[in-house]
């Protein structure tokens, strides 16, 4: 069977080139027209410690990082020890023989030593080490070195001398492999044709692009892994667009600033990760109470507390749904892929502005930094909404918090002559005046929550995001970054004759209950999550009264399709 894709894992000391070599190889493959999907994990240490990177390169959409790697590239002995047992049977080991002493193995692994350090030393250009390796990889697995050359050229465009030396190293690595290594494995990149319009982006990059497209012109944030580069990109881009990005003194300030900007009528957002998001709960409540649009991206990482800052987890859903005192409406959205980051962040802005509610966008560490290839989105299918502004009639006797059937009250912004009002975190009447009367609180609470009902009705119009066999009695429910792995597992299950369907939810609150109830009826429901407690499963049980089978993984690494498939098979048997 010809390979439709290749899975390559590179491991070594953080800061020693593993990540940058992997990035370049990925970029080269993408230039050549392959679809790519990457995953990276950093050490806890500030510098050093073990880092690894996995690249899946394929023809046609690859939505997950694959199962066992076909190829393992080890920069040092530690990497070898950590990963050797995961290399697939018959897989390929590429290594620096001066750093790694592989054992004889019982798995038919093919060994290719590439003495990158020694060759670099010989060339008297130690920084060429990675390029030597990359050259060898091109030769071994059939990637045109011209593509990598292109990558090197664009990265070092302004440093002619360095560029020359790098290109030489690349060539030397290529030649070394050609002359010294006897290719004796089945792993080759498939043949493809270059396509137009393919983008290679990370989740964080897609969030920034989508937010700008949705009209975001103000951003305030506070650095935190893995969300910081959203802030950094905004710092670069917003000023060009007449917008402002401000690094706040903490996350409470950042979210408060967004509320201020948003009250001023400017679309605004912040981005953070768990610890920062926890600190934003009070501001989220204020936005809910005073009906100010607020978009918060939480790029989840492994918790609780400081937890494992560089590791994947989906354990902030509970806080997104329920964090903060009191009952107030909020919307929770989670993207399933890099492309979906773009689409869903636009949706987040649309909902925040149309419904004047806080919207929590739950990304996660793997989506933040993984790169995927995707087709440039067709923007004509992605509308952008604005707030409902008061009409002249509304303004004749303007009531900011007017009680309406939809729950939505037209929102005036400063500058509007007859729209003056005080936005209030204190309970208030329709005019925004303090009012602690029992009937008023009841009416206002109902009004605020009615917005979620209106939104729910809107969401019910969308078809459920299903994949696989819609008549299957086994459904795999997931959210967030694991979409690709789940889809792949479902495809494989169906191919194996196990009828399976997946439901990958984007809007986690409110839920399209009218569709979900009949859909779930009579089905066995697996809920796949990267957390200990099964937060989405709990939400579904409480909301819909269903019974769930929880499939949880929470060590900080992503599900593989194979792991999910195994659970599907188990449940299909059981």
């Amino acid at each position, binding site marked *: 069977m010809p390979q439709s894709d290749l899975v390559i894992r590179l491991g070594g000391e953080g800061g020693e080139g593993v990540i940058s070599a992997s990035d370049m190889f990925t970029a080269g493959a993408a230039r050549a027209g392959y679809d790519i999907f990457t995953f990276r994990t950093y050490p806890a240490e500030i510098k050093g410690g073990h880092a690894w990177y996995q690249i899946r390169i394929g023809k046609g959409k690859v939505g997950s990082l694959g199962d066992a790697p076909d190829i393992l590239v080890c920069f040092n002995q530690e990497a070898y020890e950590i990963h050797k047992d995961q290399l697939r049977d018959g897989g390929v080991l590429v290594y620096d023989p001066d750093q790694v002493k592989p054992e004889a193995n019982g798995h038919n692994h093919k060994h290719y030593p590439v003495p990158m350090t020694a060759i670099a030393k010989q060339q008297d250009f130690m920084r060429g080490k990675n390029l030597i390796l990359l050259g060898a990889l091109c030769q071994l697995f059939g990637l045109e070195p011209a593509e990598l050359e292109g990558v090197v050229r664009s990265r070092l465009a302004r440093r002619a001398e360095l560029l020359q030396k790098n290109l030489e190293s690349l060539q030397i690595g290529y030649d070394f492999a050609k002359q010294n290594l006897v290719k004796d494995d089945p792993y080759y990149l498939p043949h493809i044709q270059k396509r137009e319009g393919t983008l290679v982006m990370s989740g964080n990059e897609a969030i920034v692009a989508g937010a700008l497209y949705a009209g975001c012109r103000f951003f305030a944030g506070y650095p935190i892994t893995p969300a910081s580069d959203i802030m950094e990109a905004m710092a670069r881009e917003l000023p060009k667009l007449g917008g402002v990005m401000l690094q706040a003194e903490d996350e409470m300030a950042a979210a*408060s600033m967004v509320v201020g900007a948003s009250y001023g009528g400017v679309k605004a957002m912040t981005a953070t990760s768990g610890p920062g998001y926890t600190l934003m709960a009070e501001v989220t409540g204020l936005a809910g109470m005073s009906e100010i649009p607020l978009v918060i991206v939480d790029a989840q990482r492994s918790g609780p507390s400081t937890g494992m800052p560089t590791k994947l987890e989906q354990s902030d859903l509970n806080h997104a749904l329920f964090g903060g005192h009191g009952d107030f409406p909020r919307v929770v959205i989670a993207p399933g892929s890099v492309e979906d980051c773009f689409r869903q962040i636009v949706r987040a802005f649309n909902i925040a502005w149309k419904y004047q509610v806080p919207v929590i966008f739950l990304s996660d560490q793997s989506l933040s930094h993984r790169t995927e290839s995707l087709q440039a989105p067709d923007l004509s299918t992605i509308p952008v909404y604005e707030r409902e502004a008061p009409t002249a009639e509304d303004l004749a006797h303007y009531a900011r918090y007017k009680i309406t059937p939809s729950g939505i009250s037209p929102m005036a912004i*400063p500058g509007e002559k007859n729209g003056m009002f005080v936005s209030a975190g204190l309970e208030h009447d329709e005019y925004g005046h303090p009012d602690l009367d029992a009937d008023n609180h009841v009416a206002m609470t109902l009004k605020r929550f009615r917005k979620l009902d209106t939104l729910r009705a809107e969401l019910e119009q969308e078809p459920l995001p299903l994949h696989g066999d819609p008549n299957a009695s086994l459904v795999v429910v997931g959210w967030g970054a694991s979409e690709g792995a789940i889809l792949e597992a479902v495809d494989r299950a169906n191919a194996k004759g196990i009828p399976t369907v997946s439901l990958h939810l984007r809007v986690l609150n409110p839920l399209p209950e009218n569709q979900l109830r009949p859909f779930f009826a009579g089905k066995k429901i697996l809920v796949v999550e990267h957390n200990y407690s099964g937060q989405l499963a709990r939400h579904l049980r409480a909301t819909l009264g269903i019974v769930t089978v929880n499939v949880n993984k929470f060590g900080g690494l992503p599900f593989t399709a194979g792991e999910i498939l195994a659970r599907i098979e188990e449940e299909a048997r059981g």
Partner: protein
Amino acid sequence: MVEVAPAPLTMKDYRSEVKPVWCPGCGDFAVLSATYKAMARLGLRREDTVVVSGIGCSSRLPYFVKTYGMHTLHGRALPVATGLKLARPDLSVFVFGGDGDLFSIGAGHTPHGAARDIDLTVICMDNSTYGLTKGQTSPTSPLGRKTKSTPYGAVVQPLSPVLLALAFGAGWVGRAYSAKPKQLEDLIVEAYNHKGFSFLHVESPCTEFNNTYNYFDALVQDLPEDHDPTDREAAIRLALTEEKVNLGVFYRDDSRQDYRSKIDAWTANRGQPFDPVAYLQQYA
């Protein structure tokens, strides 16, 4: 059609339909009234003005002013106002807060507000107590004071809002007293006219839990005639050593560029429209 210039607004025009809920004699009445007058003198357009506050007796103020307003969270008025002013530089933005609001729970925002130098007019209504929660010590309560939360007397040295604002780098710092309403009004006008972050400290007694009118009546004085308000060092020295309570402008730096001027200077071509197709092409 001939456009008739609207009649200038008077102080009454800034009064909202909501009746102040403060206790009789509360110093905050004077701040409110001086604010109305200052706004009228400044000729502020009501719809282009936003009054932002946190939570506290003093922070009820926005409800009583006929402009836009935000009653936010305890301690967060400053960052909210910061976001608003940065997003809408065309607006006049005032921040009102208590001593607790700006120097206790909001203490982390005040230094950054000042250092950032965004064009906000910040008015701290200091009653040296937590009025709304009925009289506990605040960051400006004097040593030894017995309150509900310090039944054996306060043991923490008070913070000086004026000294702190100066140390944080505020470009305009002044002090007023509720019982001197004309000066208070003048100082609000002056604080507003300063381009950049201005900080007005108002001694505004709480008649209910900390009636300090007599205390201040005996202690206030205008700043020494020879004080040079452009001399930051002198201002800090004054704030540091004062035994009397000085009223007036401690410091004023008219030469500085505020935040907005600086960011506007960055890029000549600010304000291009967003071209999503071109933007996405960088990832091709």
